[in-house]
């Protein structure tokens, strides 16, 4: 009995936010009378939250290094404005325009990273200044007007779907096939990892637990693709997200740079004396954040089909909230990319569910605030229990 209890509490700590996310989904599924998980709405949730997920990934890395970035909303707006000028006004080819926008984002990140990492100005101040600077520059560039419309290829970034190869039929077959292929890849990967682990005689979870986990994940994955297949299939932006999530998880867990970033946040002085180039790591985190803010700006602009002066307001708070719900700590050194994504989804499902129920934005804000506080309190209290 005690063993069961231990497993439950351990997993509550580890998977607390995933369980909370599932809880929220079930709650809104009931409250909205089933309209939350309709194919159309699931597709919507992904598209609506794509840019917050992109920002949350970058923000998670910034917070892991022990810093903060308040400027991402303004940077996204500024890059969106430049995208408007380059692509909509000057008719630059979409590919080149987007490429330049991403470079611009990275340059802005480098500017802020320079002040934080090399000039040692607190990131709160640097990025608060950045928030004002780039909001102001957005207004300067746009002259208070909105730039629209954009060419179709550009809009496709946030609104197109993978083209269907198998025509006819109710379902998008390609999506189902992608789901099955991904499941196969995932299962082979896990089995291989388990084999390697047993080869080195590391501890592995019990076989039953392992199979249950695989079955649950594969079922969820295929249910998800099945739902998408009932509508338009896989959105392009979902592919962008998945590439980002996999590559950033890889970098943070499996590379020297990733380990160095965690070390900088864990104990900057010890990291420095261990040969980690701490300034460079912080600088790179900001360059990366700028790049992702640029990408978020592009995706958001494409979704609106317009560059507007007000774009991206409060994005920074959504991104920070997502990272914190996802397990980041402001003292630095902890957090995962996957956590940031879960955090962003918690916020996203809340937004979407409450909108479906017809709750006004006034109450939505208040409720989101409470959820943020509650999520972190739940986590902190759980951890304290584990320690005593």
């Amino acid at each position, binding site marked *: 009995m005690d063993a069961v209890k231990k497993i439950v509490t351990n997993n509550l700590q580890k998977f607390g936010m995933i369980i909370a996310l599932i809880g929220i989904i079930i709650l809104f599924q009931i409250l909205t009378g089933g309209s939350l998980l309709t194919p159309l709405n699931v597709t919507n949730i992904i598209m609506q939250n794509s840019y917050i997920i992109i920002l949350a990934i970058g923000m998670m890395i910034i917070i892991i290094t022990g810093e903060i970035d308040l400027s991402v909303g303004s940077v996204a707006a500024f890059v969106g404005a430049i995208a408007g000028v380059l692509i909509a006004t000057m008719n630059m080819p979409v590919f080149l325009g987007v490429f330049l926008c991403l470079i611009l984002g990275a340059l802005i990140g480098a500017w802020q990273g320079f002040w934080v990492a090399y000039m040692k100005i607190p990131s709160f101040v640097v990025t608060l200044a950045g928030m004002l600077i780039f909001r102001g520059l957005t207004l300067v560039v746009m002259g208070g007007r909105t730039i629209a419309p954009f060419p179709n290829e550009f809009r496709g970034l946030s609104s197109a779907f993978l083209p269907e190869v198998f025509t006819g039929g109710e379902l998008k077959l390609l999506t189902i096939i992608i789901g099955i292929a991904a499941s196969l890849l995932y299962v082979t990967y896990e089995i291989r990892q388990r084999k390697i682990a047993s080869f080195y005689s590391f501890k592995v979870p019990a076989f039953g637990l392992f199979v249950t986990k695989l079955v649950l994940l594969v079922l969820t994955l295929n249910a998800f693709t099945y739902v998408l297949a009932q509508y338009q299939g896989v959105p392009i932006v979902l592919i962008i997200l998945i590439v980002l999530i996999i590559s950033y998880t890889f970098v943070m867990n*499996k590379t020297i740079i990733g*380990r160095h970033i965690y070390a900088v946040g864990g104990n900057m002085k010890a990291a420095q004396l261990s040969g980690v180039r701490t300034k460079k790591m912080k600088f790179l985190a900001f360059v990366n954040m700028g790049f992702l803010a640029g990408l978020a700006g592009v995706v958001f602009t494409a979704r609106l089909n317009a560059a507007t002066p007000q774009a991206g307001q409060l994005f920074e708070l959504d991104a920070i909230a997502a990272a914190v719900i996802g397990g980041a700590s402001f003292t630095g050194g902890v957090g995962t990319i996957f956590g940031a994504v879960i955090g962003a989804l918690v916020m996203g499902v809340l937004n979407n569910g409450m909108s479906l129920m017809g709750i006004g934005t006034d109450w939505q804000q208040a409720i989101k605030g409470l959820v943020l506080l509650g999520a972190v309190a739940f986590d902190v209290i759980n951890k304290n229990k584990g320690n005593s």
Partner: protein
Amino acid sequence: MTKTLLEMKKITKRFPGVKALDNVNIQVKEGSIHALIGENGAGKSTLMKVLSGVYPYGTYEGDILYDEEVCTFKNINESEAKGIVIIHQELALIPELSIAENIFLGNEQASKGIVNWNETIKKTVGLLEKVGLKIDPLTKVKDIGVGQQQLVEISKALSKNVDLLILDEPTASLNETDSKNLLQLLREFQKQGMTSILISHKLKELLSIADEFTILRDGQTVAKLDPKKETVDQNVIIKNMVGRELTNLYPERHPQIGEINFEIKDWSAFHPLDGDRPLLTNINLNVHKGEIVGLAGLMGAGRTELAMSVFGRSYGRGITGKVIKDGKEINVSTVDKAIENGLAYVSEDRKEFGLILMDSVRKNLSIANLKSIAKRNVLNLHKEVKLAESLKEKMNVKTPSIEQITGNLSGGNQQKVVLGKWINTNPDVLILDEPTRGIDVGAKFEIYKLINDLAESGKSIIVISSELPELLGISDRIYTLNEGKITGELPAAEADQEKLMTLMTKSGGSN
């Protein structure tokens, strides 16, 4: 017959899964200085936390009798009201506040919530006089030395009308002079009738000052010694502490010294904040292959500054001079270049500068040389686990697993992790700054042995230590440092504490 001021009877304290204290008894006579000794983890701190009410009445078994009354403290305020005050090893002062503000923090001299600063300062001056600190009470605590901060802590205790003063490792971070002053002060308080309990690893100090000894091992009282009735010396104490006889404090050593391997030439540096203030002037020293060289100096002499400025210019500015290895000048301008060129520096402060306490033992062991377990920047986690396991074995780190959070290990084991981390970079020259600070006798011996093994494998080793017996015990040759200059060099066999102290306080410098 003096009466017993404090008696703790059959104290048992359980934590989930462990018995931290098991039927511990301790009796402290009024007006005595009582030494509480034990290896790290023996239960000294837990016992003092029970006494002061950090672990409130009801969470432990047994009785506390103070002044012949049974005490049921629920928190620190209640024990302090009785006159029991603890000064912890990590000083609890606020650096940005003045001495006066710190002393009366939580005990403000105020009426109706408004602080009377004149009264505060007047009382502070009186208290500082008692501890022999001649300093402006409005000085910020961050601007005074560690020794003086310790005295401020004692003043703070005095301000609470203390009858029983408990000092946890008060001299751990003090140099010889400051330690002596502190012990002298305790003797004076004793004359005025104060009782104190002293927890320390420095057995010599305890032997010079304490009237009674209580020794704990694994949460149990193993001995009560009274120097008036029996001979109490280091051997007796150590035997009781570790449960076996350590025939020698320092492992035997058969030095095989080769040719000169490492040289620092004409090394000078200036203060990082004040570019005109010299920190180090024209330092010249060398280390042979297989040699252990000691670096002696009082606090502020520039020992750590020298080590850190050589190791990737991590301290100071305007640094000039050459670092030579194997006859060739090497580039040590950044930490990663210094590591690449075969240098390793084990910091004196393992918690601040040595370890990432929130990370696992595995990650701490590999961090300084991730390249060895990576291919094109991608880490091989399996290699890392193998590496960590073998280092853990080699260094004899006592931890349930390499995934254990480093912050949960004892001081000695943390130090072994730091050493392991640097051995993993495969250095030719190791600079060890206070390698045994704050760790217990048994672990010290192991660390000495590791240092010996490293020297025997042909590495050059520089040891910085404030404890002269330690330097004399493990080095082959010793340099002394004062005011940023080398003031002497002599073979350890010809040196003794007096000779070193003379050189360490000599100004001018020999070169």
